[in-house]
């Protein structure tokens, strides 16, 4: 057991899976000699060679499309997209091809590909290095979408994604890479795709969050605890398939729900969580379901005051908690 940064846990999962199964390959821009722009694939090139650690041309659609072909012919590719903002050219390959391969071939062909990408805003990331893309993919039948929030889950969910016989979108909020540290076992373990987890117990209201928003929410819960409000914080971890049971159980206990997500509010992922609670836990609710989400502008503007205006911070979350608790 060692304390690792989030990015190091991702790197360790790569190393262990590469050693465990020679079918695993990673491909993407700068993943080879450089080890990735954030270092996720550091050390793989020297250890496992350029056949398995593949520096690709700067062309996202074919990063996805070629991974699909590799998977059809016996490899287990991890396709890295340098920034989620640049994954859009691969949308067609991921949605029309990877996600549908098994369904459209009536189970004749599968598509065991992991699509990995850093998403979300950090300091100075601006319109094209800050986007949240989870909703586009969570909407697509045939795709699994995970957003680990701790180093332990980052390693365990990446291993689960690599071993999954179907395509998995593995989304890494880039602000966690170096800021979030946690205990990570040295050996092999898997965090199953699907189950959400309660990170903090509470009785007054439930916060549902994932990625960086989980950490802001935990801090906000700590702040309001001093005021006597006991907020429960649920880490969704997997966005598709959604763990409804954990959500509904929490709402049954607290009777109030706040959903926090950094993506644009309108038709964002939180809307699905809100609809689920409204449909299936209506009689448990003592207050309307509340969402706190990013403004409906395209990405996070660059200049400091604009950036701060956009960010969902612990202070903004605490404010929403107080409002919901007082309803």
């Amino acid at each position, binding site marked *: 057991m060692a304390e690792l940064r989030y990015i190091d846990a991702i790197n360790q999962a790569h190393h262990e899976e590469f050693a465990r199964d020679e079918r695993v390959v990673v491909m993407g821009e700068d993943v080879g000699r450089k080890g990735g722009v954030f270092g996720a694939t550091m050390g793989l090139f020297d250890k496992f060679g350029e056949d398995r650690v593949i520096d690709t041309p700067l062309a996202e*659609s074919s990063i996805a*499309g070629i991974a699909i072909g590799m998977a059809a*012919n016996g490899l287990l590719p991890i396709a890295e997209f340098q920034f989620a903002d640049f994954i859009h050219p691969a949308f067609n390959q991921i949605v029309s091809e990877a996600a549908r391969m098994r369904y459209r071939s009536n189970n004749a062909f599968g598509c065991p590909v992991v699509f990995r990408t850093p998403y979300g805003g950090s300091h100075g990331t601006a319109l094209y290095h800050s986007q949240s893309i989870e909703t586009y993919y969570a909407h697509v039948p045939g795709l699994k979408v995970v957003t680990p929030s701790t180093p332990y889950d980052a390693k365990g969910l990446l291993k689960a994604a690599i071993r999954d016989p179907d395509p998995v979108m593995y989304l890494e909020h880039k602000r966690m890479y170096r800021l979030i540290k946690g205990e990570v076992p040295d050996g092999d373990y898997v965090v199953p795709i699907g189950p959400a987890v309660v990170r903090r117990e509470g009785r007054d209201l439930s916060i549902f969050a994932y990625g960086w928003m989980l950490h802001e929410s935990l801090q906000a819960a700590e702040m309001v605890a001093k005021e006597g409000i006991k907020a429960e914080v649920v880490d969704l971890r997997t966005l598709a398939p959604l763990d409804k049971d954990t959500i509904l159980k929490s709402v049954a206990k607290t009777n109030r729900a706040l959903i926090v997500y950094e993506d644009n509010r309108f038709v964002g992922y939180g809307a699905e969580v809100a609809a689920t609670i409204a449909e299936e836990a209506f009689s448990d609710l003592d207050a309307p379901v509340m969402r706190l989400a990013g403004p409906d502008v395209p990405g996070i503007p660059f200049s400091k005051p604009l950036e701060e205006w956009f960010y969902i911070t612990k202070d903004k979350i605490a404010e929403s908690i107080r409002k919901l608790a007082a309803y």
Partner: protein
Amino acid sequence: MSAMEAKARVTPARHKTLGLSDQDVLDMYYYIALARALDDRMWVLQRAGKAMFVISGPGHEGCQIGAMWPMDKKHDWFVPFYRSIAACLVKGMTPRDILLGLFARAEDPSSGGRQMPGHYGHPGVKILSTSSPVGTQFPHAAGIAYASKIRKTGEVTMTAIGEGGTSQGDVHEAMNWAGIYKLPIIFVVENNMYAISVPLHKQVAGGNVAARAAGYGFPGVATDGSDVLECYRVSKEAYDRAKRGDGPTLLEFRVPRLGSHSSDDQQERYRSKDEIDADRRRDPLQTFRIYLEGVGLMDEGKLKEIAGRVKREIDEATDYADRSPLPEPESGVRHLFHDE
């Protein structure tokens, strides 16, 4: 090539100098006849209200059979497009397989009746499942070939597309990748001069698809797609090159377009009668027959015999597919993921 040109190209040993036996060329003719008769049958069934939709490739059969002939039917990979009927037949699909797809039956090996007709796929003969967005199959083929290379399986991959599809970015990206990694792959472009109604001069800058290969550092060859033996010759070279580890080849086959884009299209609305008639004179079914007659391998009796065999096979396949059960409605939810 026209009938007259076909006659001029009859030289007794032409197929033998290419390493093809008399039986080979007779088999090649059989597949062209089979693919064409199957194509005709599908249109008849559609017009009779027995099938919703047809998309096919009359005129493309000769180049497809020439291209597929060197490939190992069990070992090599094929990533087709919706006009690849003849190629899929040579690779190992049967008229029954194709008609099960036309009728959207549960037993359809391509998709279990989930996809429109013409979206071929067959794991048993290594034909990857295909979709409708044009060009996406090129990166898949390059990925398969990359896996073959690093797993050292010795497989060759062939993929095919129309000239319209070559405008897609995916096609460029895949050929760039294949050139960088010298992949064992053959890119086939079946150029029938139209993408639905849009003519070549509004589709392909420079007018020459094959010439683009030079930019990727591998050979590109433009061939008359109605000359079956020439299609075979360039494909065999491409195949041997891939096998040797010397990398990809781009083959452009200039084929006649004998039919409309699909059963929802009328090509008479945007093509002149003269042009369509000129294409009919380049029909590979005719030009190849002329060759076989010229070298003394084909006569009235043999033609009848092949036509009879083809008809029996297609009748049998039609009956079988027609009687085959439709998918259960409840099965619509299955196979989104493994083991469900």
